[in-house]
């Protein structure tokens, strides 16, 4: 075997080990090259009658095989090409399955997608005991399905019901869960693996593996519904309902996977593999899958390409001793975030009541993790000890980062920095979690403005994956890199954004909320608007969103943004009515919406209209999204971010814009050349005699993306 780059065959006295060690990457990736190499190795081994047992192992720490190569999936340009690709994988794994001797996958870490499918084709699977072991078939999350036989082999090993759950959700399980379901045959501490292999070899010799298979079958629980005739269709109907409920039916992949399983999982012949291949080929070409794959790459790019000094180690430094000042909802959430990532932090507030609330917020998040068995009570308690509540500001503050999350008032914030700067080391960075104030304005009186920036988390901090990093006029490039590293260490996606009122996400989101309020004031019911936007794919309608973020806060941010962009935003009577009536949303349990319906109290505050405007329900989404598109065009023309796909990603991560739509600007492009521009022209002229952003004139055919042209 020559020119094998990704595999090594090691022969020991009694057995052989085939070790995967991807030549070009830190993780093991099943590229077509490595698959073909595997094929030639396996073909040769199948003719070898001296081998009695083959282990398939990984040469990478904490990673068995991370899956197929997503670049290759993205390049698929026709159904037949996709089918062929899946067919190749299926063929190789078939050879693996049909080897004349038993095989065992030794799983030492992440085992995803194609990696798990490889393990499924082995006769046995053993996992080491480390917490790094994670098993999943996450393909549906990328808009495709497991195409290397996963939909066929998984149900046969762990049962149909469990396989259905794992494939449709794409969620991962750990080694002990894998053992319980029968997916894993043994969980062994890492250091014992050499002994275990000997024992395993001996046991295969004595009974040909019967005892292992017997124990596996015992652990596989047959779903009660599968025990009587007709139960299977009930099970599948329920699974389908669950898909529709969680995805709104917007994502074709889980539905296709569902169909493949329903049609083939109970069959014993090989026809299922053919259906799996074709389904993959079809799915890989869907718009949704293209979008999800693209977003996957933008996510990677944002974590990699924004560093200004990518080579300098010093610029990759991140915080070791952070303080969060202001223990409100955001401050408490940020402190928890540090704690959950094992970074000890201080949480400071002048009010002991706020500190209590901040600590309780953390406690609650840890409780939630305990309930899901993601950690133990002991670990949660230790996690809380990593947050030190501070009731007074020390005279000397030995911190390398202070995240200020106090009230949204420029004077208060600036005077806070004034007291902070002299007690901090000269190299410490101060950032503000402001959502609406200008960073350069906040940095006005600082002695070291180069060490100051905006660092904007989204609420709720534990769930929203985006952090906007906003350099002021004088912020140093090292400061920016430090913040990017810190955001990544916190498991967030950083996005460097130019300083402007509202930054990127709120600035683009507000025209949407404003448009929704204005429609409501002109007679379109908020209930209807929310329903239309949910149907579009938004996680919630604009009015439920207002309830979530706090109507009083929306009012305050709105006032600031209206002042900043007066030609595009105007005040809302409905909003100010709500605020003055004390309807602040979820936080004070007085909301605009309740169970999807407008509450009577809020309804009474809608201004009376003599003539309702006429608008078809299906036109509501574009009516709300067009003002966003216009504002996004302004952001691009001002260079707030440099690329359209950064805007799309930011809105997906920061507001929950539906990923299957590919993003706001992708969606706009898909409506056709000049669509957004023409629609905006009509809309804006009628509304307030304005024109769309001049940026549209630079766009060829009025499209934001080259490829869509």
């Amino acid at each position, binding site marked *: 075997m020559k020119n094998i780059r990704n595999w090594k065959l090691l022969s020991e006295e009694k057995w052989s080990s085939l070790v995967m060690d991807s030549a070009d990457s830190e993780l093991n990736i099943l590229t077509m090259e490595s698959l073909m190499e595997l094929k030639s190795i396996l073909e040769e081994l199948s003719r070898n009658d001296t081998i009695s047992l083959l282990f398939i192992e990984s040469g990478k720490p904490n990673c068995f095989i991370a899956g197929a190569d997503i670049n290759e999936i993205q390049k698929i340009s026709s159904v037949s090409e996709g089918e062929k690709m899946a067919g190749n994988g299926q063929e190789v794994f078939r050879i693996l399955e049909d080897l004349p001797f038993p095989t065992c996958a030794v799983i030492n870490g992440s085992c995803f997608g194609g990696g798990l499918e490889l393990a499924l084709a082995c006769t046995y699977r053993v996992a080491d005991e480390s917490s790094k072991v994670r098993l999943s078939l996450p393909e549906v999350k990328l808009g495709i399905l497991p195409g290397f036989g996963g939909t066929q082999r998984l149900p046969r090993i762990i049962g149909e019901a469990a396989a259905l759950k794992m494939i449709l959700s794409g969620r991962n399980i750990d080694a002990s869960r894998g053992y319980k379901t029968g997916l894993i045959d043994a969980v062994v501490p890492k250091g014992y693996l050499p002994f275990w292999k000997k024992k395993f070899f001996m046991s295969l010799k004595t009974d040909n593996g019967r005892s292992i298979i017997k124990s596996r079958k015992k652990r596989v629980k047959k779903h009660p519904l599968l025990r009587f005739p007709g139960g299977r269709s009930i099970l599948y109907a329920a699974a389908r309902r669950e898909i529709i409920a969680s995805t709104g039916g917007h994502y074709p992949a889980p539905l296709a996977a569902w169909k493949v399983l329903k049609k083939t999982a109970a069959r014993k012949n090989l026809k299922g593999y053919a259906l799996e291949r074709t389904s993959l080929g079809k799915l890989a070409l869907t718009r949704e899958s293209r979008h999800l794959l693209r977003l996957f790459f933008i996510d990677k790019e944002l974590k990699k390409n924004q560093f200004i000094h990518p080579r300098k180690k010093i610029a990759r430094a991140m915080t070791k001793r952070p303080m969060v000042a202001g223990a409100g909802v955001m401050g408490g959430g940020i402190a928890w975030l540090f704690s959950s990532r094992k970074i*000890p932090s*201080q949480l400071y507030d002048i009010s*002991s009541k706020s*500190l*209590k609330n901040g*600590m*309780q917020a*953390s*406690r609650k998040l840890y409780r939630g993790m305990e309930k899901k068995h993601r950690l133990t009570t002991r670990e949660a*308690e*230790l996690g*809380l*000890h*990593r947050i*030190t*509540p*501070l*009731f007074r500001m*020390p*005279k*000397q*503050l*030995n911190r390398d980062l202070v995240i200020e999350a106090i009230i949204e008032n420029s004077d208060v914030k600036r005077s806070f920095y004034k007291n902070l700067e002299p007690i901090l080391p000269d190299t410490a960075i101060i950032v503000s979690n402001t959502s609406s104030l200008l960073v350069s304005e906040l940095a006005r009186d600082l002695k070291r403005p180069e060490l100051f920036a905006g660092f904007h988390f989204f609420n709720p901090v534990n769930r929203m994956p985006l952090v906007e990093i906003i350099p002021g006029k004088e912020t140093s490039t090292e400061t920016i890199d430090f913040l990017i590293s810190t955001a990544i260490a916190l498991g967030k996606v950083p996005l460097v954004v130019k300083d402007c009122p509202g930054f990127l996400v709120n600035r683009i989101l507000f025209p949407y909320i404003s448009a929704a309020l204005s429609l409501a004031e002109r007679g379109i019911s908020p209930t209807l608007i929310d329903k239309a936007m949910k149907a579009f794919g938004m996680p919630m309608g604009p009015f439920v969103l207002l309830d979530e973020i706090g109507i009083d806060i929306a009012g305050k941010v709105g006032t600031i943004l209206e002042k900043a962009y007066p030609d595009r935003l105007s005040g809302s009577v409905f909003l100010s009515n709500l605020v003055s009536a004390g309807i602040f949303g979820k936080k004070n349990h007085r909301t605009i919406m309740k169970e999807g319906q407008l509450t009577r109290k809020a309804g009474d505050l809608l201004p009376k209209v003599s003539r309702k405007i006429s608008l078809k329900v299906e036109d509501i989404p574009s009516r709300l999204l067009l003002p966003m598109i216009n504002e996004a065009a302004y952001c691009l023309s001002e260079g707030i971010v440099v690329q359209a796909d950064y805007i799309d990603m930011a809105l997906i991560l920061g507001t929950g814009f539906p990923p299957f739509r590919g993003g706001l600007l992708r969606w706009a492009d898909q409506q056709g050349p000049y669509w957004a521009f023409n629609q905006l022209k009509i809309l804006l002229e009628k509304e307030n005699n304005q024109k769309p952003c001049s940026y549209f004139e630079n766009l060829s055919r009025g499209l934001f993306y080259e490829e869509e042209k």
Partner: protein
Amino acid sequence: MPKRIAIIEGVRTPMAKAGTSLKNLSADNLGTYPVKEVLARTGIDPAEIDEVIMGNVAQPAHAANIARVIALKAGLPASVPAVTIHRNCASGMESITTGALKISAGQARIIIAGGVESMSRIPLLYNREAVKFYEKLALARSPGQRIKILLTIRPRYFKPEPALVSGLTDPISGLIMGMTAEVLAKEFSISREEQDDFALISHQRAIHSMEAGYFSEEIVPVPVDTEYSSFLEEDIGPRKGQSIEALARLRPVFNRKGGTVTVGNSCQITDGAAALILMSEDEAEKRGFTPLGFLKDFAYAALDPERMGLGPVYATAKLAENKKFSLESMDLIEMNEAFAAQIIANERAFPSVKFAEKFLSRKEALGTIDRSRLNVNGGAIALGHPVGMTGTRIVIHLLKELKRRGEHQGLATLCVGGGQGAAIWLEAE
């Protein structure tokens, strides 16, 4: 001590009567808060700490070597060693003096010393008979045997032995601590009224200091449980409405007939923790710290367990062997109020030439203790006495109070169960 040792900063938790506000917080959790707070206030990198030394009397079963548990929970790196120290009521002082000696000997540069006690969490134990029963049960070989043994169970097995009571009883003399106070009351003819008067002063001074905010400098609020249901920010021992009449109504607890010591004129059983940072004076200067104060010298002495309350005289006499020390020059004295009777006995023994000749082998008396300089902000009768923690608390409080008043010399002293005394000479600049 050849050179004085700098105390950079010290803080303590609020103190709560056992079984009240802090009952849901275990000692190891309670102890982390002052440790984290001194680190935050001084800004010292936890990795620079050479050792954590904590005093603790009722060492909890779930946290063996509690100092180590506290250190790790408070975020000190795993590489910092920690030791728990037990010298009964002086444990929180022994931790400081042990740390000072280590620094003097060049074994350490920076030390966190402190004390912690959760008297709420002192366990109830099975009595000996019940333990035997369980032993037998564990050895049963068959279900039949097990049932047979189960049938021997008696109601008296359920009567627990409170470890608190055993812990407060001197095993040599057999006297519970309160009885040692009765011994002193008799020896020095101290009346019930005198004791109650002193108790009242303790409450009045503590209440005044609380209202004036004198304690706020030294207190770090702590959550009442690991749920962070609320924070306790102030001591709960001092009674605003305490009156001589109310004190007089209480019945003696230790000697019910003819005794004088009541719960009102004894210290309270309390939960609390404290910690401070020690380093050499040179180190403090190098790092640009203005220390809270300095430890000049100290002494421990021992005596008959029955008269343990006189520990302060004995220990101070030993401290006075240092020629530079004189009681007259002490601006403030903190003497732990185990019992009012015990404080008054010391007040009488200190100036007595007879006492000095008979018990201290000195020709002259140590000097008088001026009440206006003694426990000026109240003591354990009002604030409580978490046994392992008090030693640290009175050192911190004495230094902060000297600083507040712009005064310089101070003596902190304790009597120690089992018949010992501790005295520590402090200086503020």
